[in-house]
């Protein structure tokens, strides 16, 4: 079965009192959208770094479709909060970067990059320099670039964290559309409960000291949005509001959501 799985992973640093992550198990299926919530210091980003292969677990293992992975690879492309774009390349060449690494022919590369830019709402903006783009547009380029790697899993570390509220709402809808269309599995690290609830098919709450999962909740607001329900209506639904409040208290108290 297709799954990116953290299997009883522990991440510990010498001299630290408690491990950053303690025997944590989390599986993300293809077609799933898992959002991880937690306070600062709960190990959210470490969890993503393990899944991406930037870090090796102290114990336990990370598997992709059953086989253990070491190090990063194009099947798990990452979108970063600080966009991590390359300012010496224009928007199109940034998107085409993973294709260049795979030695795709320049014309094909260009064509594919243009298409991906159009997919994230940046049609015709390929020639723009990175510094000419707004924060939201940069993040769109970052997402298009990750998709260019044709990953099985899209790993996102607070990709909307630095954006203003309006742009954030638009980008949430974009993320859902893109995730749905690319048929990848998604892992989203976020500190916004509303974002997690709206986007994910499963919301996971991490607690700190040691980092562990205290709640795991299946939700379907994102799927309903993709089926055509308006975002604002979904976010103001009593169910949504109730879950949001429960999750906020779970994040703050480090305790499980009462079922």
């Amino acid at each position, binding site marked *: 079965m297709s799954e990116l799985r953290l299997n009883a992973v522990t991440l510990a640093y010498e001299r630290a009192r408690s491990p950053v992550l303690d025997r944590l198990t989390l599986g993300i299926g293809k077609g799933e959208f898992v959002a991880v919530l937690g306070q600062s210091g709960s190990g959210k980003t470490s969890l993503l770094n393990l899944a*991406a292969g930037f870090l090796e677990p102290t114990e336990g293992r990370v598997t992709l479709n059953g086989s253990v992975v070491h190090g*990063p*690879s194009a099947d798990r492309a990452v979108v970063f909060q600080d966009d*991590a774009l390359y300012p010496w390349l224009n928007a199109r060449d940034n998107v085409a970067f993973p294709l*260049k*690494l*795979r030695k795709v022919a320049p014309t094909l590369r260009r064509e594919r990059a243009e298409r991906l830019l159009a997919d994230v709402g940046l049609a015709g903006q390929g020639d723009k320099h990175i510094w000419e783009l707004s924060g939201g547009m940069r993040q769109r380029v970052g997402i298009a670039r*990750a998709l*260019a790697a044709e990953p099985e899993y899209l790993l996102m570390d607070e990709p909307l964290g630095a954006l203003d509220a309006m742009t954030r709402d638009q980008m949430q809808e974009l993320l859902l559309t893109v995730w749905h269309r690319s048929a990848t599995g998604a892992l989203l690290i976020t500190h916004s409960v509303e974002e997690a609830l709206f986007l994910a098919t499963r919301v996971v709450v991490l607690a700190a000291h040691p980092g562990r999962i205290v709640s795991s909740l299946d939700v379907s607001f994102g799927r309903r949005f993709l089926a055509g329900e308006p975002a604002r209506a979904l976010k103001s639904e009593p169910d949504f509001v109730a879950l949001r409040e429960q999750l906020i208290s779970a994040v703050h108290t480090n305790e499980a959501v009462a079922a």
Partner: protein
Amino acid sequence: MTVSVDSIRLGQGELPRRRFRWSRVLPILAGAGVALGIIVIWHLASTLGWVSPVFLPPPSAVLAALGRLVTTGYVDSTLIQHAGASLGRVFAALGFSILIGVPVGLIIATSPIGRGLFDPIIEFLRPLPPLAYLPLVIIWFGIGETAKVLVILLAMVPAITIATAAGVRSTSKNQVNAARSFGATHLQLLVNVLLPSAIPSILTGIRIALGAGWTTLVAAELVAAGRGLGYMIQSAAQFLVTDVVIAGILVISAIAFAFEALLRFIEHRFVPWARNQ
């Protein structure tokens, strides 16, 4: 109501008129004023007999010397030939310095073993004044062009190496991780991420290296050169031809300034991201 008058005018589609800014013009005026002041005092000092014209010929004499240098030359070569010889040495040294300094800088920044190997050498060379190792270079390599280029090169390599290493290290961790997550090999990471990201810093290193190169040039040309600006100045000094000495200094300064300006232009034109981040 706090709507400003300006914003209302702008709202009507009128372009704001570019205002004359004293803050922009003043520094240039001040600089020109200082230069003019120095020339006037210099002129007065030599013509009114405050200083003997042997030690300080008036600006007009220096200008005349410059003219003679261009047309008839001094010590068997014209100014163009002297300048050509010096430029050849400085740029040969710069070329080799880039060929050595950039790869070594990359190695220092990316490999702990490489750092252990090269860092001590660079840190040993960096603070040494070129005049200190010039005699040794002459003992080893003779008094030909090799020794001259080598001395200049030794003064340039540390600047370029250190700038390259600093540039590579300044690449953001996420930029590196992004490339790795898209499947970049070590070589691809080096060529496509670390090197381009270091280019602004490398250009700064080249600017510093050129400065060091001009400084070292005169020393390198002290010994058995037949041509070159440094040699020209040295020869003139020995015969107290002060106007040629001053003219030579002004020429070196002008050339150095021109290349500084050229490099700034290159930076502006080809690495625009350096100033837009």
